[in-house]
């Protein structure tokens, strides 16, 4: 049972990197590829239908951490307290940018919230590099270390590249070459590698600190009936919003 829940946790974290990775990547690319407002609108509209379904993977990661690894949760988060707070603020600011940018028509209003999307995406992507470094040192080292900063830059570049592949798939001809679904799948797998490295290193420690069988059984019994619906809803998102089919026809909410 511990192994199954570790697999669930791993899937959620890897899924977050693979999916939210391109949302953050497109956010990072806004100032690079979105030179005018129309371009930025198109870029945000491209990720719009996916963001809500993607960012919840991390919400689920945190919930699973609490339910399956309560002891770890109480150790890990306080150990990197300032980093978690800063990343939460980045996440909040990025989301606010998406929700608010089109609520008022003014150019400066939208430019301000676009900037929030860029800064939020940047700090969140970079923060993941620092988290990976902290995890590699067993949450014992300093939060700011040259190696950590390097990892932050690497994750940021990785997400930006993944975002670019996503744009090539969703908006063929917008910037760079058109990409196939298979290319997007490959870049997603690559974007998930930092998460897998994180999990590989922590696997035995995590398995030892799983919640007792009674708790895991209750969780399994309650989650299992909903698992097909969760998978189905995610698949439905990808089927509904695939490119073509007048994907760009209606004004986007984000």
């Amino acid at each position, binding site marked *: 049972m511990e192994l199954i829940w570790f697999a669930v946790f791993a899937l959620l974290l890897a899924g977050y990197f693979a999916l939210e990775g391109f949302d953050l990547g497109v956010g990072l690319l806004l100032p690079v590829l979105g030179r005018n407002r129309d371009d930025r609108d198109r870029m945000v509209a491209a990720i719009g239908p996916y963001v809500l379904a993607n960012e919840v993977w991390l919400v689920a990661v945190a*919930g699973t951490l609490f339910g399956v690894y309560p002891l770890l949760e109480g150790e890990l988060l306080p150990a990197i307290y300032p980093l978690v707070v800063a990343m939460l603020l980045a996440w909040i600011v990025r989301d606010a940018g998406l929700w608010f940018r089109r609520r008022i028509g003014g150019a400066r209003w939208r430019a301000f919230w676009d900037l929030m999307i860029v800064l939020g995406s940047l700090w969140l992507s970079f923060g993941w590099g620092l988290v990976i470094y902290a995890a590699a040192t067993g949450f014992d080292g300093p939060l700011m270390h040259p190696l950590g900063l390097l990892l932050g830059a690497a994750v940021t570049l990785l997400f930006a590249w993944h975002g670019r592949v996503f744009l090539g798939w969703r908006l063929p001809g917008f910037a760079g070459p058109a990409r196939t679904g298979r290319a997007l799948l490959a870049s997603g797998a690559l974007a998930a590698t930092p998460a897998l490295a994180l999990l590989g290193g922590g696997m035995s420690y995590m398995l030892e600190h799983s919640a007792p069988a*009674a708790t895991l059984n209750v969780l399994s019994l309650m989650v299992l009936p909903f698992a097909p619906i969760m998978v189905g809803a995610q698949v439905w998102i990808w089927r509904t919003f695939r490119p073509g089919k007048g994907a760009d026809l209606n004004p986007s909410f984000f």
Partner: protein
Amino acid sequence: MDALDLARLQFALTGSLHFLFVVLTLGLAPLVAIMNTRWARTGRPLFERMTRFWGQIYVINYALGIVTGLVMEFQFGLSWSGLSHYAGDVFGAPLAMETLVAFFLESTFLGLWIFGWGRLPKWAHVACIWAVTATAYASAFFIMVANSFLQNPAGAVAAGDRLALVDAGALFTNKTLVFALPHVLGAGLFTGAMVLVGASAYQLRRRTHEQEFFTRSMKTGIVAAAVGITLTVAYGYAQFGGIQDGKFDDNPAAAVPLGLMMEGGNLLSMVVLLFMLPLIRKLPRWRWAHPLLMALTPVPFVLAILGWLARELGRQPWMIWEKLTVADAMTPGLTTGMVTASLTGFVAVLGLLAVVDYVLIARVVRRGPRDLTLGATATEQRSPALSH
């Protein structure tokens, strides 16, 4: 203030802020779902416009519900690791269910509903908003399970220095849960309904061109408010059977909000059931009454926060009733500086965003059902102000 006071203040402020948005989400979701269903069934443009207008308010409000919720979720680990250490094997399960199942589905279906407008088959689109409503209610259920465990740690026994889950059935049928959940859901419906009434009163007072739209909305709001307040008050009193002994004795910090909430709830139930409901046909035309209806709009929000203050301050000094104190639940080594920094950051950013969010909602109410982004089509006639 020491780190403990600051951590408590941070939880109280972010939690209250979160609930201001959640309580409206819980109320508007079923109302928007009903409007959407009516539209799908009759095909009438009036119901389409109602779905889009109240839906737009619902989703703008939802944005702050998400971002404040993120802070709530992570705060348990940041500030209260003593809780997860002592009771994580029990308390963590409902929280995991809330995030892993309920919110995961809610967010996914909301994305489908917002962005699938005009792309999904009609009834599939309706199903999405009902799924959002159902999962929002499920979220409320799991959060109330977790909270009720803190009030009355049923289904768990101490094993060594930690609590172990021995009876999941007892956890999910906690006596402090069974009446509190419908109380909260009723309060949500009442809050959402009073927003319909207040916003419609504002428009009708201004002699809006949208007479039919806002008359209809006000009537829907009044009926829903009557249902909501009845549930809230009835299940509010029903809770006294399961309350902890002596919870409100010698605890004015909890007893005062409790008293205010009850007085306010009783008064409002009389206003709704004896005045608004019997006069439902007249009220949309009685312009003199509209300022009163507008003034009532914020009251359910205030009462909801008072309710949480009563429930949570009544639990002090316990984190888990007679098992773990709040002081023992705080993360060891948490310094005043750390909490001050995060408290400032969260409250400043979320506070500002909350203000922006309410301004945006007020703007939608003021402009009425035109130029809505939600459900807009490319061919739709847009006013010059928004087209560029």
